[in-house]
């Protein structure tokens, strides 16, 4: 006989209340209350329709029919520091140790569209990622790596179109045409204004560039993901799991809306949109988040946008463990945190995964720490047995109830954002920014009052480990990079470069023109990233945030 709500009430009254509870918050890290027990009564009313089967609408249980029994997730460690040559060496090290895809971290000047010799780049070159100023740097970065065999991810947004142009031309010079390139470029500009805050242009022209890329890739790069709609940074900025889910999906739906408004058929580009989520430390909440995300995306694409291809309904995503959950205190504990988070990503059905290194609350990771992080994934894949069956938590009373709750909260946010006039307008008004700042502050207060415990930080603080060895970026990199850049400017065909930049400015003035072909020509002419961005800014302007706290 099925368990009903009144059965659980009886149990709670007669049996559960017999013993007092511990003094603990009993809520998720996002503040969502958690009951002592979940039962069959918490399952959705129509479990077959809502939970369904892997590889079938609404994809709650996974986007592919065979999931990890067919193919394991891609182990993709994010790397980048110093010069392109240095990062190229780290890439080859990772491939040699069994990594199956590459992921590029760019330095701050590259993310902001500044060349390495710009006065504002001083002290920042190669610090938090690799410095890429020109086509030459991109060629060095992937030298000796067959770009038709390895998939490459690039985490860059405001100047994404320029980096894509460098990449396509670098591959061209390897003899690999654009249509054979597989990989992802992040390009998710809305979450930059919301959370990561690396921008070049105001919101509207930045949105146009995203549209140009989606359009160009739809016809030239069938294996490429032109946008990776990202919740990762939203979560790192302090959002709750529900906010990460809601803002990310709403960003994605906004890109779809824009592309459709440009006249594209949704089925021509939607299959190439992919997602990127955080794996935070609250295990079940994260799994529920991924499951809810798949279901919402499938429904919205099918029912709101009328997509007919199942590939358009399928939400595929990359996961990275939560940097913000790592502690500088007792850093070895971070290996455990990362393993648990990675497991949540896997049980949530991720397509690829980055595991953080235990020393990342201190500095960029050392080679040793990166190897342990990669091994963590390999242990999950090869030893634990969790990849033997698909969605092993499907049907769990708790996980299904949390999944439903996540979905409900996402739609509440969609409603609020629609009332503000959509995501672009909400971002301009600072709505998601404020929601995240409030959540971050609330969490910090919970931590400081001791309601939330963080091992090594506000609990079990004795016996702090000695700091591990940390990676130091040699300041000589900056000098070397600036020198390379100057050499490129001196040696190139100055007339061709000037003409390419002029054409780019002309193109920017015409909102109907797709800028990708012009950026490709500028890349071939050895124009630098900073030159292209600053010339585009003469038409588009730049962005300054009204700071709210």
């Amino acid at each position, binding site marked *: 006989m099925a368990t009903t709500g009144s059965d659980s009430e009886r149990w709670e009254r007669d049996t559960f209340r017999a013993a007092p509870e511990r003094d603990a918050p009993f809520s998720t890290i996002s503040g969502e209350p958690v009951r002592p027990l979940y039962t069959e009564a918490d399952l959705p009313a129509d479990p077959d329709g809502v939970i369904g089967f892997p590889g079938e609408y609404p994809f709650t249980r996974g986007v592919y029919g065979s999931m990890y029994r067919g193919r394991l997730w891609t182990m993709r460690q994010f790397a980048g520091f110093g010069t392109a040559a240095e990062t190229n060496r780290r890439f080859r090290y990772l491939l040699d140790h069994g990594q199956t895809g590459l992921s590029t971290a760019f330095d701050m000047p590259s993310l902001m569209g500044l060349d390495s010799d710009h006065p504002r780049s001083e002290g920042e070159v190669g610090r938090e990622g690799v410095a890429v100023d020109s086509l030459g740097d991109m060629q060095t970065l992937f030298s000796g790596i067959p770009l038709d065999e390895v998939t490459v991810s690039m985490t860059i947004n405001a100047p994404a179109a320029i980096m894509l142009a460098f990449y396509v031309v670098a591959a061209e010079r390897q003899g690999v045409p654009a249509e054979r390139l597989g990989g992802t470029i992040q390009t998710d500009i809305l979450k930059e204004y919301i959370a990561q805050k690396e921008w070049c242009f105001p919101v509207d022209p930045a949105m146009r560039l995203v549209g140009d890329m989606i359009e160009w890739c739809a016809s030239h790069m069938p294996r490429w993901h032109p946008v990776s709609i990202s919740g990762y940074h939203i979560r790192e900025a302090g959002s709750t799991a529900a906010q990460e889910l809601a803002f990310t999906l709403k960003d994605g739906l906004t890109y779809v809306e824009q592309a459709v408004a440009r006249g594209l058929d949704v089925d021509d580009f939607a299959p190439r949109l992919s997602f990127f989520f955080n794996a935070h430390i609250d295990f079940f909440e994260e799994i529920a988040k991924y499951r809810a995300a798949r279901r919402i995306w499938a429904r919205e694409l099918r029912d709101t946008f009328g997509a007919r291809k199942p590939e358009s309904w399928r939400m595929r995503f990359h996961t990275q463990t939560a940097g913000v959950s790592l502690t500088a205190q007792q850093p070895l504990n971070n290996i455990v945190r990362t393993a648990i988070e990675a497991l949540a990503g896997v049980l949530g059905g991720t397509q690829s995964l980055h595991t953080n290194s235990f020393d990342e609350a201190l500095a960029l990771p050392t080679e040793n720490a990166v190897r342990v992080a990669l091994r963590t994934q390999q242990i999950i894949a090869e030893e634990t047995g969790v990849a033997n069956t698909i969605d092993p938590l499907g049907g769990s009373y708790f996980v299904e109830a949390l999944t439903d709750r996540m979905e409900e909260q996402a739609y509440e946010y969609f409603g609020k954002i629609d009332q503000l006039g959509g995501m672009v307008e909400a971002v301009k008004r600072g709505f998601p920014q404020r929601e995240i700042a409030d959540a971050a502050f609330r969490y910090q207060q919970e931590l400081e009052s001791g309601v939330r415990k963080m091992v090594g930080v506000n609990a079990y603080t004795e016996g702090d480990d000695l700091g591990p060895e940390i990676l130091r*970026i040699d300041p000589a990199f900056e000098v070397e990079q600036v020198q390379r850049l100057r050499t490129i400017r001196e040696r190139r065909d100055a007339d061709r470069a000037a003409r390419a930049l002029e054409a780019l400015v002309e193109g920017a003035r015409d909102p109907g023109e797709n800028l990708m072909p012009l950026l490709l020509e500028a890349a071939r002419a050895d124009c630098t990233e900073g030159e292209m961005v600053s010339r585009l800014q003469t038409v588009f302007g730049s962005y300054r945030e009204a700071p709210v706290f």
Partner: protein
Amino acid sequence: MSAATEKKIRVVVAKPGLDGHDRGAKIIARALRDAGMEVIYTGLHQTPEQIVETVIQEDADAVGLSILSGAHMTLVPRVLELLREQGADDVVVTLGGTIPSDDVKELKELGVAEVFTPGASTEQAVEFIRNAVRA
């Protein structure tokens, strides 16, 4: 002097450099405000020149810098130098971020009053600034 008539401490919270990690800066700004201080938050991507100009214009008692880009050894000494040039070296300078311990030592020798690394509480920051400004 009673607490009510006591002049409010004025603090500039600033994000020098190119990184966009403003979670910590915003939390600190709010905590200092809640503790009764007058807080001016500069917003992101500020140059040392812009920050020092804000400190002077706002007649601030303290400036809290937040950096997570690894550029602290370039940006912080520059802020200190500009403050000295402007005759404002009595302003209490604190720094928050992922700062390796060797760098903490060096920055303190250069004149940074305190460095708050990951795990530090807002309460520690509030107390420190209150005591340092009143000293």
